[in-house]
């Protein structure tokens, strides 16, 4: 089913019997648990395009199947962007899919992830209820924030139909500094860059270098890049090197077996030790980790509660989730309320529910 309007989506959800699998562009089809093969598929890609955009308000509302890359191009013509640079965006990842997987990229250092950018949602629940939360203004505390609840829900609570996002200005200039260091040294390097109060928008360790990216006015980014080198050895990258360095960061997500995990920042060296390759927003403690196999995933799960499986080789029986963390019982209770018949995303959170 590929509904093109909210009404069609509502009807499709309500009038179809049995399990339903919500699909966007399929760029994260392999994330989390393997969905039940019996489920009828609801494709969201027919729900595309902007519904409201007033650049001066710095907010935009889009249908959930809109590819973020397409949206970025639209916003760019107004000098704006969504400050979300998840690796799968260029491959066509939809706004709804990025929210449902709570995916993010190096900009999480300064802008957070979907939870910090979504200001309103319209969702369709398994029984056909259409509900809205949040709104079209950035500051808003009226009612519960269901937009955040749906972050990381992997299509198991309802179908995102429309998402309202806050936008940010596109920076006039950017500059990246590469500071070669290992994972242990990275902690000190991060501390020095932050203590210099130069406000990098991204601070990402990948392939043996800490990358500090600055955004702002042309002369300001130049001077901040140079100032970084007063405290740490490294080089200011030219635009080609800069693009290449950030391309390597997003490449990590394409390795055969990948998990995303959240830790205290100072636990990064432990994470790196178990990785074949890793890209890490070190200062916030969010790591995208390529591993050799199940043993390494287990090792990470033994130490950390919040580990999400993002990619595994076809046919792999690597479990999607580890031991249940403290709030899994609450997740089950929420699931029970939103989808009592258990129709949506069957298998996504197996073995938790």
């Amino acid at each position, binding site marked *: 089913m590929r509904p093109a309007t909210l009404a069609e989506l509502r009807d499709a959800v309500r009038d179809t019997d049995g399990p339903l699998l919500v699909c966007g562009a399929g760029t994260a089809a392999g994330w989390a648990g393997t969905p039940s093969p019996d489920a009828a598929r609801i494709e969201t890609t027919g729900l595309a395009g902007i519904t409201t955009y007033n650049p001066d308000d710095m907010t935009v509302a889009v249908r959930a199947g809109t590819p973020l890359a397409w949206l970025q191009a639209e916003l760019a013509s107004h000098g704006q962007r969504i400050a979300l640079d998840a690796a799968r965006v260029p491959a066509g990842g939809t706004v709804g899919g990025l929210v449902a997987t709570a995916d993010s990229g190096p900009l999480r250092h300064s802008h957070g992830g979907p939870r910090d950018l979504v200001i309103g949602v319209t969702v369709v629940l398994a029984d056909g209820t259409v509900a809205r939360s949040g709104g079209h*203004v950035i500051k808003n505390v009226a009612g519960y924030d269901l937009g955040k609840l749906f972050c990381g829900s992997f299509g198991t609570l309802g179908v995102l139909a429309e998402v309202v996002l806050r936008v940010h200005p596109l920076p006039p200039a950017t500059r990246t500094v590469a500071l070669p260091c290992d994972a242990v040294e990275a902690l000190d390097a991060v501390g020095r860059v932050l203590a210099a*109060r130069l406000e990098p928008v991204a601070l990402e360790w990948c392939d043996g270098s800490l990358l500090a990216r600055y955004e702002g006015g042309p002369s300001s980014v130049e001077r901040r890049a140079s100032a970084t080198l007063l405290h740490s050895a490294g080089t200011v990258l030219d635009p080609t090197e800069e693009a290449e360095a950030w391309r390597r960061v997003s490449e990590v997500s394409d390795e055969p077996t990948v998990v995303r995990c959240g830790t205290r920042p100072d636990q990064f060296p432990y994470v790196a030790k178990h990785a074949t390759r890793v890209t890490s927003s070190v200062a916030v403690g969010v790591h995208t980790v390529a591993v050799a196999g199940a043993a390494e995933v287990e090792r990470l799960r033994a130490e950390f509660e919040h580990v999400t499986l993002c990619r595994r080789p076809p046919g792999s029986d690597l479990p999607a989730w580890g031991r249940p963390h403290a709030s899994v019982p609450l997740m089950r209770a929420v699931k029970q309320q939103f989808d009592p018949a258990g129709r949506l995303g069957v298998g996504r959170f197996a073995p938790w529910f």
Partner: protein
Amino acid sequence: MALTDLRDKLVADLGRDGVIDDPAHLRTYECDALTGYRVVPALVVLPRDADDVATAVRACAEHGVPFVARGAGTGLSGGALPTADGVVISLQRLRRIIEVDPANRRAVVQPGVTNLDISKAAAAYGLYYAPDPSSQQVCTIGGNVAENSGGAHCLKYGFTANHVLAVDVVLPDGTQTRLGGDAPHQAGFDLLGAFVGSEGTLGVVTAVVVRLLHTPATVRTLAADFDSTETAGAAVTAVIAAGIVPAAIEMMDNLAIEAVNEAVDAGFDPDTAAVLIIELDGPADEVEERFAEVTAVCTAATRVTIARDAEQRARFWRGRKAAFAAVGRLSPNYFVQDGVVPRTRLGEALARIAAMADEAGLRVANVFHAGDGNLHPLVLYSEAAGEHERAEALSSGIAELCVELGGSLSGEHGIGTDKACSMPRMFSTDDLETMQRLRAAFDPAGLCNPGKIFPTPRLCGERPGPYRPHPLESAGVIERL
């Protein structure tokens, strides 16, 4: 009966000095800073740690008695308003800063710690806690989490929700759990995000892990006078549209300035129609470049005063932060409203508010977070002169105007008791029932801070105000169905 049993149980478990039941003392818990609503609770408990909180909550659950958490009681929406047959759980004894971890730039604190004390404890490391409600000397981090509180600098830095990594919570059945984790990546639903801003209706916070930021390298502040609130509003839009993200843009209108000047020596021009306080912070080069752009954008200003030093900047802010209290000098009574409009409609909103005030024959002072479109109209009135009802109607009319202009009923003070009956203006029955599903997952018995956020027949009359389509819906811009 249940209450007597409950009291005996609580006294046995928490000790005699952990339970208040004498009427005179109970009365000090009858309201928060929205003093128009008062209900004396049946009991107040003063737990000393998370286990005490769990004990108290479990006892309430077993006895079927409603309870409400209370921090400093500075809430402005009646969020901590007790029920007459219920228990207040005061977190005032849980005020320990458990840990400041400079290497990981975070702090772990008990819920009764004040917002400002976190920054004070972090200052030794050059760090601070960013969200800065004007009440920050008094209000607690637990209250901030419950309300998703904001502050002047949230324009650049975001709200409480963006700065909390995890919370330890006693759920309404008395079990203890943790929401969130060591980093902003959660395996599964963002329950932390759903909890922050839930106004004490999903559980009681017993510890909070907050992010700390390095204090900015440079701060530059100016005050720009304008000959009308509309031109000031247009300047706000122009600054933002130029791609600048100031740390703060605050506006005060003439009436607010008058009050502030009388209360503190802030030095604002008493004759100006509106003043904007614009602050930029960050790396020196970036701030200088952008500050020049801001000054250039403020061409419509009649005067621009650039704070020459930290002392003058502090004076501007003293004035701004004293504004609510200062308004008390202009009028025996006032209501503080809190609504949000899309920033581009600020001028229109202010003009309509002025017209509504004229019609009601009342004065409204405006002092607010202009960069966020977050209005705080202060409706001045006199109880003695019998103006209460007219003022209340004007105040809720203003909140509903915000919804009509495509905004929100509340930007930071919460819905609480105050605006529960206005919720159907902003949300349909299905929207509200869907939110209630979250509530039911956390609190199936409905004992945790009942009567807040959601309209009830008891509070709003049998028929709460009808849902009217959102204006964007009427315009065909957003679709419901």
